[in-house]
């Protein structure tokens, strides 16, 4: 049996990352991976790096990391709504300004994908989708035949992604799997402050995914964000679990479940 801990976007939430890593240490896993977007949204972006390093977490490059490393003008989330762009810009400028040059350079060295062979199953880890670092794979807009196409093209049996911020798992009829591992950076628009990571288990070729909620000191994170003068809209999300900004990319079902 092989068990992996898969972390989605961290968004500078060092407190949730620390809690998740402690939880993972208790579970005992064969390896821990982070699928990218280390910075964004939260406070003190440099704080997650030593935690990842000390725990031996293997990281991928997300779109945010790619932007920071390359000195791009934005986070490549593709917003067109002026309000979404306003908040995305605040977050990106803050994160860009507070991430050390050494960390930016390191982000640029991270791979876009990792391929693992576990008990005969070909597992592909990437950030958005196998074909685009910033493609959103939402549950309600990723039909089975499209996921099968992505798996075929990528020559994978199990595909694990993040980037959207909301976890889901689809077992295809042919025995292949796609898992969006969720994110540790912020709650997933469900009205609770919990954040999530994923335990992926392959046991005699059988694949299962368990989503693990992480209870952490979100009030302390909110206080950190307040001290850094990050927008009250972001802090509200951390405290309430409802997304308040960057909503335009949500499909109908995911949007309808939220408050805003």
């Amino acid at each position, binding site marked *: 049996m092989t068990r992996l801990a898969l972390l989605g976007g961290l968004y500078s939430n060092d407190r949730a990352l620390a809690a998740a890593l402690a939880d993972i240490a208790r579970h005992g896993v064969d390896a821990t991976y982070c699928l990218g977007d280390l910075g964004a949204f939260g406070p003190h972006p440099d704080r997650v790096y030593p935690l990842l390093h000390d725990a031996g977490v293997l990281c991928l*490059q997300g*779109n945010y990391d*790619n932007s920071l490393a*390359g*000195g*791009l*003008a*934005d986070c*490549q*989330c*593709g*917003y*067109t*709504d*002026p309000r979404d762009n306003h908040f995305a810009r605040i977050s*990106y*400028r803050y994160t*860009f300004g507070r991430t050390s040059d050494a960390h930016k350079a390191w982000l640029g060295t991270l791979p*876009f994908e990792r391929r693992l062979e576990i008990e005969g199953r070909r597992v592909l880890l990437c950030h958005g989708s196998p*074909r*685009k*670092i*910033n*493609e*959103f794979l*939402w*549950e*309600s*807009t*990723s*039909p*089975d*035949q*499209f996921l*099968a*196409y992505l798996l*075929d093209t990528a020559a994978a049996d199990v595909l694990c992604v993040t980037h959207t911020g909301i976890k889901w798992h689809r077992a295809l009829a042919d025995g292949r799997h796609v898992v969006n591992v969720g994110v540790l950076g912020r709650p997933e628009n469900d009205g609770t402050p919990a954040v999530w990571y994923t335990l992926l288990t392959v046991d005699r070729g059988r694949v299962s995914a368990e989503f693990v909620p992480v209870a952490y000191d979100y009030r302390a994170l909110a206080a950190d964000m307040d001290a850094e003068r990050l927008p009250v809209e972001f802090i509200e999300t951390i405290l309430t679990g409802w997304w308040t900004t960057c909503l*335009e*990319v949500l*499909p*109908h*079902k*995911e*949007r*309808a479940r939220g408050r*805003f």
Partner: protein
Amino acid sequence: MSPSAPAIPLVHLDHLWLQVSGTRCNIACAHCFNSSGPDVRTFGHLTPALVDEAIGAAAGRGVREIFFTGGEPFLNPHLPGMLETALAVAPATVLTNGMLIGDRIADRLAGLAAASRYSLEIRVSLDGYTEAANDAIRGAGVFRQALAAVARLSRRGLLPLVTIVRTWPDEEELATLDGFARVLREAGDERPRIKVLPALPLGRELARHPEALPGGLVTDAMLEDFDRDLLMCSNSRVVTDRGVWVCPLLVDAADARLGSTLDEADRPYALQHHACVSCWHYGTICGNVSAQIDGPDTARRERPA
């Protein structure tokens, strides 16, 4: 045909478009890119059998999303059943003027949305946030009926996506979007979702603004360091009652008909129309998220301030 027009292959059929009501519409907007209207019979309705066949073929090709367009899709009486077929295999979107969405249709749409694990998006067109401005483009009485549809859909949690063709100067962008959001809230849409589309130099829009025609066509040089996945011809096809076209914008162009079936239409298309410049410029303009989905290898942009 220009010998140098770059040819774009169909990389993957992400988006299946179904021109379910042909070019038949209950109104005739001043900027309509395919000149639809009450008496426009360039294209006719799709039959349920043809739609079933197209959805089946597209599903076999791994389709990601299915779009229903026209004309006005709700003029086709079989639309709800067609949506049900689509939603069984993929997320679906309807592009409508909203005028035919009464309580009965809205109930049906809400039922279809709830029954599917995939999203149903209802895109309602508006072009002004005052009755005078909107109806000058879309026709008398359209504003009130469209807002009534938005309210009916909103009450049922369908969160309609209001699409607006940009017909204002850049400096009025924020005020205009605020105006739309305010009017939608007043109409009962508490969570307005707005998508702005560019005006396209095609059909009636081109007839009224011939000066908007771009000076040139898409060249190979323009495609260097450009993410070709943004072009609809690389990821979409449109099924009409007269065959399969390369993209929704070019249904009036004879060369853009690529075959009678999706399989036949799986061949490269040479970018030889002025509308291709719009698609190159804006990228994935017809999808629901007008995001520029650039990959990491695209041209580096300026550093943040």
